């Protein structure tokens, strides 16, 4: 029985879900006015990502104060003072909610996630690969690893993102509308932003366009592996700020204007909470001595869907200047992104490590990689053959069926992109019926034994594996819904050396845990789209 409850997210997120093809994401999410086409400094980011606009009004009195302060600094030969507020505090202020409310069904939220995935062109790393990459990076500068209790650095989430993570993630793909899902637990993005400043009279009417400040907003988000929380980091990229206020104001006025960043749930979204205050520095401080601000975005299991209590949270970074002297007419917001949290009790770390809650970035393609030159080489060779030439694999189709069609075997990825239907994980206990059926079909096709032996009489593997040195490998895996018993797909069995099969199984454990691939849950709304899928890529 499928539940079909309603949860609320923002009208803009709904627009994303329902009309993303027509609306560029920054149009859909920005609270501010449409972008202007003014000429200015060259954009810092390549590609088509256009700046997100912020409009701020400054009172005549405040402008005078700013310029007086600039003059004083100029006379004294000192830099402009820092913003006179704390950088960031633990208390989270109430902010004016965005206008309007809209309901979005869970299914529509999943459509958002699917569309989000489609617009990403940069392949996502498996967590295994990204972890190993970072580990190699760390080892070039430190050899502190000792003994057999080396802590997994990739799992650590502190008050700033690690430099290794920043260097690995913040590449060209991050400077895009969709940002970059680096791996299932890491997202990053660079967003060009433009702030227009207007002098306002006592009645609040704009009287003069003072200037424009441009910069690059940086966002890194990391999902926790032991709680339903994502940590969102943001800063202004060092050295990215440029001013177009006039030569004197460029030096002595504009850099002293404060700017706040604020990580938050998309407006009016239920079951999404965020911590901590906005972070405020002057543009000059952001530009020369940037600090990462962070916020924790969470949702609760109580409102989650299905066995694993799935719940997406939509989030973004707002930027504005708000105080008695400044009034943000149109705050800017980074494009809305989504994180999905779950409480899958069967995701268990080694010997009791608590990983039964976690948050991942679902808008990318999880890919398991096996290597033709690795310890699992024979399995990789088998899978490659099954994916590319299923007609040559065992079990054969019955003659009359073989005359009409070729075997169809799903799950292939090439260069990190899916080229076939994805695989859905099943769990030996939670999906015991499907799992058992896969086993029985495999035994029938491979060993001519068990209740399905007659199904594959004359069609199965011949000769059967030599069990003193070999095992029967099956693809799609026994731990997938598309395995041997699937009524919709064909499968392949092949005898492979025992150590290769053991190694492939070990890597599959690591992969399922590393990328937090959840097991099939038929009770979810729209299960084909809601359940995790993954693909298998064979590399040299």
């Amino acid at each position: 029985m499928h539940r079909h409850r309603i949860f609320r997210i923002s009208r803009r997120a709904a627009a994303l879900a329902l009309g993303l093809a027509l609306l560029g994401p920054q149009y859909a999410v920005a609270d501010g006015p449409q972008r202007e086409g003014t000429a200015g400094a060259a954009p810092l980011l390549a590609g088509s990502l256009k700046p997100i606009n912020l409009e701020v009004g400054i009172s005549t009195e405040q402008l005078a104060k700013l310029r007086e302060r600039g003059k004083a600094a100029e006379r004294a030969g000192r830099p402009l003072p820092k913003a006179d507020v704390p950088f960031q505090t633990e208390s989270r202020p109430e902010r004016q909610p965005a206008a309007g409310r809209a309901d979005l069904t869970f299914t529509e939220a999943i459509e958002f996630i699917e569309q989000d995935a489609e617009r990403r062109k940069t392949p996502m790393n498996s967590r295994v690969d990204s972890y190993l990459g970072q580990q190699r990076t760390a080892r070039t500068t430190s050899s502190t690893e000792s003994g057999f209790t080396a802590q997994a650095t990739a799992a650590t989430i502190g008050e700033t993102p690690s430099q290794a993570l920043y260097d690995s993630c913040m590449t060209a793909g991050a400077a895009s509308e969709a940002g970059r899902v680096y791996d299932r637990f890491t997202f990053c993005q660079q967003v060009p932003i433009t702030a227009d400043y207007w002098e306002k009279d006592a009645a609040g009417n704009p009287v003069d366009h003072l200037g424009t400040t441009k910069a690059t907003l940086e966002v890194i988000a990391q999902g926790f592996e032991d709680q339903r929380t994502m940590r969102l980091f943001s800063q202004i990229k060092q050295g990215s700020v440029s001013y177009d206020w006039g030569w004197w104001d460029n030096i002595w006025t504009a850099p002293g204007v404060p700017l706040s960043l604020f990580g938050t749930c998309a407006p009016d979204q239920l079951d999404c909470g965020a911590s901590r205050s906005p972070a405020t520095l002057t543009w000059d401080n952001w530009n020369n001595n940037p600090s990462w601000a962070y916020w924790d975005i969470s949702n609760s299991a109580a409102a989650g869907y299905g066995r694993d209590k799935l719940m997406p949270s939509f989030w973004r970074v707002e930027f504005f200047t708000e105080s008695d002297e400044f009034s943000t007419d149109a705050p800017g917001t980074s494009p809305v992104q989504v994180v999905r949290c779950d409480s899958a009790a069967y995701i268990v770390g080694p010997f009791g490590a608590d990983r039964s809650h976690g948050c991942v970035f679902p808008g990318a393609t999880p890919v398991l990689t096996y290597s033709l030159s690795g310890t699992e080489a024979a399995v990789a060779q088998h899978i490659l053959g099954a994916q590319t030439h299923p007609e040559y694999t065992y079990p054969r189709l019955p003659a009359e069926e073989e005359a009409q069609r070729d075997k169809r075997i799903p799950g292939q990825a090439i260069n990190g992109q899916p080229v076939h239907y994805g695989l859905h994980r099943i769990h030996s206990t939670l999906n015991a019926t499907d799992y058992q059926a896969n086993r029985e079909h495999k035994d029938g096709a491979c060993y001519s034994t068990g209740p399905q032996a007659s199904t594959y009489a004359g069609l199965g593997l011949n000769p059967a594996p030599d069990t003193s040195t070999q095992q029967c490998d099956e693809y799609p895996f026994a731990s997938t819904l598309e395995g041997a018993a699937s009524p919709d797909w064909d499968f392949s069995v092949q005898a492979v050396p025992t150590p290769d099969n053991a190694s492939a199984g070990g890597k599959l454990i690591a992969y399922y845990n590393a990328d937090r691939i959840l097991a099939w849950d038929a009770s979810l709304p729209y299960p084909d789209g809601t359940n995790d899928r993954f693909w298998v890529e064979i590399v040299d």
Partner: protein
Amino acid sequence: MHAQPLDLTRLWGEGWAITFAPRTPAFCLDAMGVDEPAPLPDGLAAFAQRTPFDGPPVLVAAAVLDERWSVVVESEAQTGWVGTHPDVLETLAAPEAPACTAFSDPNKVQVVFREYGSLVGGLEPRTNRRWGHFGDHTRQSLREAGFPDDYATPQHPVPAAPSEGALALLAAQAITRAELRAEHLKGPWLGGLTAKPYPTTP
């Protein structure tokens, strides 16, 4: 009547191996390629400090079960489970006391064992598909634990268990007549790293 075995799948997920051997923990670790075994101050919590893709080398840990038997656990299998290597099982087996390893990955749960001086035997506990050498003593022990002699059928099922992992432990305990209890997991453990390769000959 056998006591309900621990459900290691519930405790540890779908990736683990556990070896029963009639040897001391230090002997077991040496047979599994550990050069420098050392006490694990936090016991099995040492595994939680690692990720499943740390190896090789991989961490293995051994503890005393009783005056004769030891148990060895693994949680990293990037190059396969060391406890399933035929040469390891051969070294660990003793007269009238086989060495036996139960293991789980997402695709399979199996039990492999080696009686002293014999070839490896194995079974899949959910279906009771068997291969290799099964001595009379082992067959009888499994029968007493409720396993049929042939592939399981509705008429001759395997014993009921909360998971195939629990069933595998039941079979391993039947084969060895050793018993793993929850308190063993909390006791002192000896551990170390190994990168022992799979033997080139069975």
